[in-house]
């Protein structure tokens, strides 16, 4: 009887240990959501703002940079923000005094992609409007003198 009990105990121990040994050869996964934002800086003429210094400000401290980096040859920088800090994140690109700043509403109602650039049609229309303003001013003062 004692022998049978001992065999049973050993058998139970083996059953418990076996799965651990088998699982050591498996692959496990765990995941967490960690959204990234690919930001592309480019000049008005379409050329990329490459090798620009990128400074990132988190919503909780708009004075002290949360992180810094460099844009690649395509003017791109991949931002992986801390999602525990929802709000307006500010990202500044700078190269030789040129560059710009973009505000990202992370955790808010921001679309999946967006652009701050004007379309060619918008630019042409604005330029025509401004030029017409100057020409009109010139004509007005020229007429007044006669």
């Amino acid at each position, binding site marked *: 009887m004692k022998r049978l009990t001992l065999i049973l105990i050993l058998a139970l121990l083996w059953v418990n240990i076996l799965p651990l040994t088998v699982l050591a050869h498996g692959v496990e996964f765990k995941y967490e959501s960690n959204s990234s934002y690919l930001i592309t800086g480019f000049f008005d003429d379409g050329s990329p703002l*490459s090798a620009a210094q990128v400074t990132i400000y988190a919503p909780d401290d708009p004075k002290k940079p949360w992180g810094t980096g460099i844009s690649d040859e395509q003017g791109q920088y991949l931002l992986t923000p801390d999602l525990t800090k929802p709000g307006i994140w500010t990202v500044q690109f700078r190269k030789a*005094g040129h560059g*710009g700043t973009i505000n990202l509403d992370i955790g808010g109602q921001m679309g999946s992609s967006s652009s701050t650039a004007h379309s060619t049609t918008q630019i042409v229309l604005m*330029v025509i409007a401004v030029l017409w303003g*100057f020409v009109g001013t010139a004509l007005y003062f020229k007429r007044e003198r006669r």
Partner: protein
Amino acid sequence: MHIPDGMLSPTVCLAGYGVTFLATSFSIKRINSTEASTRDIPKASLLTAAFFLVSLISIPVPPASIHLLLNGLLGALLGYFAYPAVLVALFLQAVMLGHGGLTTLGINALIMGLPAMLSAFIYGKCRSSGPLLNSILGFIIGFMGIALSVILFVVILMAFIPGQINAEAERVAIYAMAAAHIPLALAEGLITALILNYIQKVKPSLLQSTDTY
């Protein structure tokens, strides 16, 4: 050459507005004290339009992309109207197209307007009716307009590089940007010489406002 918003501290931007206020007030006072106050407004308006337009034409000079300024020519043709013309054009560029910025408007006007004022002064003092001397003077003014603007741009940026960025990398980028403007300065010198010489031949009255100096 247009410094956008966020690149300079509020103190520097305020100082830029201060200088621009003084330069504009001085220009307007001198304009009002001359007979040219309304006579030259059509010319000033059309040349402001030209200045607004040429700044939008990009010229690729690897690794940078630069654009024409023609502030030397503007100064020679407009005299005291030059600084206000630059200011108005830069304001519209900032508001409509996002070139430069509203906080840096004073600094940008200073960078491009002061060389225009100096060009106006030099051209008013040294203008010659001889084509060769007029051409040489035109070249000097055109070249100087860009060269001085670049010097002011470099000095202001180098003096106020923010602490959070890599200062050495920024300095190298600024030098590269300045070097890219050397061919532009030569080109603007030639363009200014040609235009001033042409105007001197066909309609010298257009150059009259610079006689007020």
